[in-house]
């Protein structure tokens, strides 16, 4: 009986093509849809990750705060004493700019100065944790005594802190 039906179906192929084509079309649509879903999900998670990194970087930058305890110039050395009074650890000093405070003319730029503790021991991890104090010496630096200068500290996270002093 079944064999008879199959034979009949094979002889009359009009209906077979419609079923197969519908199955193939539906399968293709489902496959493509899943591919699109996964691709879109991958793209959106990549976007989320980038956005998250950007926001976290901004948050970390906001939490940074350096206080200048004292800036002392003597014999071509400028000593800058800092306190990390922010709410985040690992504040590094990336770049230090010295410029005239009267007209903003740049005097000198220093990169990654060596951070030391107040007892003159070098800070091992070269960063200031929350509440930690430290200093760095900029040398050689020729400043005119009695003239007002500004020092700008740029941290590794990109925050900037300014202080004006008279050499």
């Amino acid at each position, binding site marked *: 009986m079944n064999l008879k039906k199959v034979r009949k179906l094979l002889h009359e192929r009009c209906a077979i093509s419609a079923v197969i084509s*519908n199955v193939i*079309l*539906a399968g*293709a*649509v*489902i496959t*493509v*849809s*899943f591919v*699109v*879903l996964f691709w*879109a*999900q991958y793209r*959106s998670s990549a*976007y*989320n990750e980038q*956005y*998250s990194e950007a*926001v976290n970087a*901004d*948050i970390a930058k*906001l*939490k940074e*705060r*350096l*206080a200048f*305890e*004292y800036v*002392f110039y*003597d014999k071509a050395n400028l000593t800058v004493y800092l*306190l990390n*009074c922010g*709410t985040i650890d690992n504040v590094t000093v990336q770049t230090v700019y010295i410029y005239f405070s009267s007209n903003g003319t740049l005097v000198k730029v220093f990169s990654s100065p060596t951070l030391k503790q*107040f007892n003159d021991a070098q800070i091992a991890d070269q960063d200031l944790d929350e*509440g930690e*104090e430290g200093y760095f010496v900029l040398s050689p630096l020729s400043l*005119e*005594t*009695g*003239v*007002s200068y500004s020092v700008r500290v740029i941290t590794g996270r990109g925050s900037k802190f300014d202080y004006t002093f*008279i050499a």
Partner: protein
Amino acid sequence: MRKLIVNAKGFSSVIGTTFMVLVMLILASSVFLWTLSQNTEYFQTVKEKNQLEVDRLNERLSAENVTYTGSGGKISIEIDVRNACPLFVNLTTLWVFDANVGNYGINDTLNIGLKPGETLSLRGSKAINVIINGSDASHIFNSWFITARGNAIPLKENIIVAQVAQGIGSIAMDLKQFRYYIVQNNNDGTDIGTPYYSFTLDGNKYTLLCVTLVNLDPSHQTINLTKYSYIWAVTPFAETLKSDTWAIRKVVNNKLASFDFQILEYGKPTTVYFGATQASRSQGNVVPLFILLFGKIGNADYGQNIPFIAIHVT
């Protein structure tokens, strides 16, 4: 629906559309929720930072009645500290600058906590010790505390100094630091050489007078001296007025330079130069010197005359 089941030609389109809508819904909602959480975190941080800034600005501390004792480089500082703000204040470091030797000392092991309204008298065994090479208690000091919030709290002189400042003027002079230089001429760029700590000077030579001034203004305002500041000498017993004047001057890198202005920050001993002048009119006399200081304190005019020393002009 029945038509769709009977004729399945549009079925794939329905599936496709359903998937598309699902994809859009899933993606949009996940991105929206994620962004919302990130923004919430960011604004929370901004809020915390603003609160910290407000706390930092509201930090009020008075450090008064300071006395310096000791010698041989070991200086002991006695002081009364009062927390005048509604916040807990933690003192982390004490800085002491000795203006006479141009050196400073630090004590960064304080960790003194002050509750709102609390007063601490750091005297006797509680006095704070600082090591400054070559320092002595008779020197001029400029000191300040650093709080955990990053504020610098200057140590105020005792009440007598404040009253003197109110009575005779905000600028004080250190008599021991008076010195003069003999220079070749009065031109910019002339090297000033080494100082003479003496009250006898040669009236035939150009002399540059040097004094150390301290701004003790009770309201802690900065004083900006203008070019109308002088030192002048007047000869006694002369039938007509004979005077010599030394105009305020700048010295940059030990060389004479043109004067623009001179800022005197509160509590900071500042070296101020006058001259160079040949005191020929005062020759042969012992003459009194006066410092005429004129400028601005804050936005207001400021003028003060300090009669300070006598010199013998030969």
